[in-house]
């Protein structure tokens, strides 16, 4: 199978879907000459022309709002938020328009759009360029959330997201863009709502998504060296959520750690831990522990940033506390 980077995998998805469906188009900042701020749209303007790769002013409400409007009229926009942090500049367009239009209009319309959001911390980008804020949207009925952890899923989930008739928020961790992995040349999709078991073990379940899955796998290897065998469940999408995958693993291991890069309090981990506590109470031999960033904005200075962000050691430590 050919190897490619996460970026290339998303580009392959974009190209395939844009060729397949002339109503798919791209809208965002710095598309034309740079192909997106991380090059994740490179070459699309050349292949599909400025009519389908729209380079906008710095107007986040327009990027998202126009995507919603175009989607309501049957087009299939893929909008780019530059950095996930800037979602706060277009929050209304997501939570009060995209998420609610179909519902409040009684099913008259649909909003088949994708919003791509490079998130997470990398290279001391500091407080306003490092956030992971998917939890806000988990608390917003009407949107779906996808968060791939590797190139294969990046492509397959992006294709699913583009084909889905509902608004899909696509979280792509900035530190993943350059990672490499096997990606089939032929056409495939990864359906939303199907988790993947990335590491198999019967002692503990580690639930994660996005870049943090890689950190969890490092932790799992480290733990395996000590004889602790972990299931690592990569959720791939947060809504729909593959509850069966979580439950199956927890019923086997009876111990759970939920890990994400977003800050701990009020994060997606809280929801997953709460659900496990609610529905699998009798299966648990220990508290469900959560690993996440410390509850501060992401600081600039490397020692501070390292201290705030969760890593493999934090995951391993949490697992050890459960044993």
């Amino acid at each position, binding site marked *: 199978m050919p190897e490619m980077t996460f970026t290339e995998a998303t580009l392959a998805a974009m190209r395939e879907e844009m060729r397949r469906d002339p109503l798919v188009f791209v809208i965002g900042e710095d598309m034309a000459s740079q192909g997106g701020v991380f090059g994740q749209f490179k070459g699309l303007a050349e292949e599909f022309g400025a009519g389908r790769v729209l380079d906008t002013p710095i107007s986040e409400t*327009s990027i998202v709002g126009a995507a*919603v409007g175009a989607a309501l009229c049957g087009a299939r926009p893929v909008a780019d938020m530059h950095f996930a942090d800037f979602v706060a500049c277009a929050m209304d367009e997501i939570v009060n328009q995209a998420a609610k239009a179909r519902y409040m209009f009684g099913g008259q319309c649909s909003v088949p759009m994708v919003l791509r959001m490079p998130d997470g911390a990398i290279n001391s980008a500091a407080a306003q360029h490092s956030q992971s804020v998917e939890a806000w949207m988990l608390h917003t009925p009407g949107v779906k959330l996808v968060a791939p952890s590797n190139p294969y899923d990046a492509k397959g989930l992006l294709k699913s997201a583009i084909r889905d008739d509902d608004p899909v928020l696509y979280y792509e961790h900035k530190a993943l863009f350059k990672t490499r992995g096997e990606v089939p040349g032929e056409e495939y999709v990864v359906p939303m709502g199907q988790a993947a078991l990335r590491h198999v073990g019967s002692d503990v379940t580690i639930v994660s998504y996005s870049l943090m899955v890689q950190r969890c796998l490092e932790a799992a290897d480290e733990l395996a060296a000590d004889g602790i065998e972990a299931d690592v469940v990569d959720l791939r999408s947060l809504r729909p959520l593959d509850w069966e995958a979580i439950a199956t693993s927890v019923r086997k291991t009876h111990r759970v750690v939920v890990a994400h890069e977003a800050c701990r309090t009020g994060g997606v981990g809280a929801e997953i831990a709460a659900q496990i506590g609610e529905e699998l109470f009798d299966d648990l031999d220990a508290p469900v522990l959560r690993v996440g960033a410390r509850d501060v904005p992401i600081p600039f200075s490397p020692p501070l940033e390292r201290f705030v962000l969760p890593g493999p050691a934090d995951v391993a430590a949490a697992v050890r506390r459960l044993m």
Partner: protein
Amino acid sequence: MAVTDVGGARAVQRVDNDIDADTQLDLLRVMLRIRCFEERAEALFLAGELPGFIHLSIGQEACAAGACLALRRDDYITSTHRGHGHCLAKCAPAERMMAELFAKATGSCKGKGGSMHIADFSVGMLGANGIVGGGANLAVGAAIAARLRQTDQVALCFFGDGAANRGTVHEASNLAAVWKLPVIFFCENNRYASTTAAGAALSIENVADRAAGYGMPGVIVDGNDALAVHRVVREWAAHARSGGGPVLIEAKTYRMRGHYVGDPQLYRATDEVEAQRARDPIDRLAATLAGAGLLDLARLERLRAEVAEEIEAAVRFARESPLPSPEDALADLYVNPIERMP
């Protein structure tokens, strides 16, 4: 009808009076439908028959009718919290709208939206919006979709004098202008944003004067003159349709009722409102039509009766319709539903 500067060049306002008789009568009929629908809704609300809250556009009917009748059925409009008129003028059936106000399962939005989210996508009415200024970017998006499909549809965005101060309107205006999108920004300056006089919130006299800052034509029209509104929108819609880019039209009008039904209106004198009765857009058009020999009293009464019957039928339909069942609340969120709420 005044015209403002357009990036230095003067936007020439071709004044043509070629609105055919049928259209003129249609304008009147649509305005009567809106008035009747809203007076009925007001009474029903005060009688406790309608839940939620309601914003009426009484006094502003010439804007909705004049603008929408200058559009094609497949053109798009985005609306505001004050959207009944826009929806009716875009030819949405009154029954389903009234049923929506009654919160019934047969409503345009199956009872999920109510007055503030009235919508009829089958006629290109992309929805009233509870977020002031929320429709501007949606209209830009509609125009993008039209361009992508290579149709010649246009998108008209209704917004208020208050909405003009939201950043969304700025971003949408700039974007539509840069891309020369077929968007008609149609501001109904009804002199108030809730309790706030336009002058206390707008840093300039005319919203249309902001057009120059986007290199867009800015046009001011008497928003209580349906024929004038119709002409202006017809002209600029044609301009937009043929690739001429967006326009900002400001219709000077007046909100005759409170901001919402029940508003004590402490912010304005009764005199001020009374003085505006002389500008009633319906009386005015009726007088014009009568003057042109297109309307006599009998015909006007017949029109009124027809409209009243239509709205009465809508009320009957709405009253007789069932409420949604509670579990319907879980439908219509996703096209591809999620089995387990995560």
